[in-house]
């Protein structure tokens, strides 16, 4: 007796994460913010904490976090997101607090705040998007701008004699005791997207387990201000950013300190 092969219903295998609001984004074509927002939303959904999650938005292209993440969101002044997150955390010990900041916000004006938030071991998650310039304001130098890189305020290329060296935040923060997890990922190709998904998940996990601060630096393209096509911008991430900003985990504490 022959059996007809059952016709297989095709199903959607990459549904939109619940926490990611279904709307067009303001990001430029090929900007990696879209991918990174999605990974953060996925992590929140993975742990099922959307209704306990409170995001703190920063200033930069990431300022519109509240348009995309379906959680409570607080706007913080430029650079102060981690301080605002600290205030949130102290006031609401049971919530999931996350910040989403760019390289100007966290590594320039916000250095004091992130260092002390990390040092205090605040149990929050910090997502740090590094695209080596100030995107929203038109492409000025950031602390993460590479040596020789031309930006609108380093028109002749970044020179360490005038502007110092690019800062590697993930490694810097890993030296602080209060940091439970510090890592760097990229999203310029599918394999990196998958690895970064795991990193962001872990950064939320250390908060949920009360171990300490979870920090993920994600390298990103900025095609518009780099003056590159999205595909060439991806190449730049691979060939110029990753060699200076190595991918990997710099700290991963398994359990919280105790007296």
């Amino acid at each position, binding site marked *: 007796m022959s059996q007809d092969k059952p016709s297989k219903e*095709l199903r959607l295998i*990459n549904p939109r994460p619940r926490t990611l609001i279904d709307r067009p984004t303001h990001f430029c074509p*090929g900007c990696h913010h879209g*991918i990174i927002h*999605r990974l953060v939303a996925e992590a929140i959904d993975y742990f099922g904490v959307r209704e306990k999650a409170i995001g703190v938005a920063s200033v930069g292209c990431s300022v519109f976090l509240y348009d995309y993440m379906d959680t409570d969101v607080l706007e913080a002044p430029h650079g102060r997101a981690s301080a605002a997150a600290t205030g949130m955390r102290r006031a609401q010990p049971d919530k999931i607090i996350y910040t989403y900041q760019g390289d100007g916000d966290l590594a320039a004006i916000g250095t004091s705040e992130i260092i002390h938030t990390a040092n205090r071991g605040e149990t929050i998650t910090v997502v740090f998007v590094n695209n080596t310039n100030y995107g929203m304001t038109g492409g000025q130098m950031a602390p993460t701008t590479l040596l020789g890189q031309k930006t609108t305020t380093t028109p002749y290329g970044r020179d360490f004699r005038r502007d110092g060296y690019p800062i590697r935040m993930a490694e810097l923060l890993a030296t602080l005791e209060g940091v439970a997890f510090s890592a760097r990922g990229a999203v310029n190709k599918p394999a990196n997207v998958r690895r970064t998904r795991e990193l962001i998940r872990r950064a939320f996990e250390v908060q949920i387990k009360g171990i300490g601060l979870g920090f993920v630096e994600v390298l990103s393209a900025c095609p518009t201000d780099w003056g590159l096509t999205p595909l060439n911008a991806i190449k730049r991430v691979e060939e110029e950013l990753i060699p200076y900003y190595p991918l990997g985990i710099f700290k991963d504490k398994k359990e919280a300190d105790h007296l």
Partner: protein
Amino acid sequence: MAKVVVIEARCKGCEICVSVCPRECLRISERHNQSGYFVVEFIGKEKCTGCAMCGEMCPDLALQVYK
């Protein structure tokens, strides 16, 4: 077999999906959407395996992968 549905209104023509598809199932079309972007089109009816590399990379969630 699998297929990809393009949400044209969301596509920004960045071509990342075109470059990551291992079987050339996507290409930029000659149509543009209301935002002025030339949108991607799915041409992999017999080729697509549903690997979803395109969906993994699309910053705008403009690609729905069915398998």
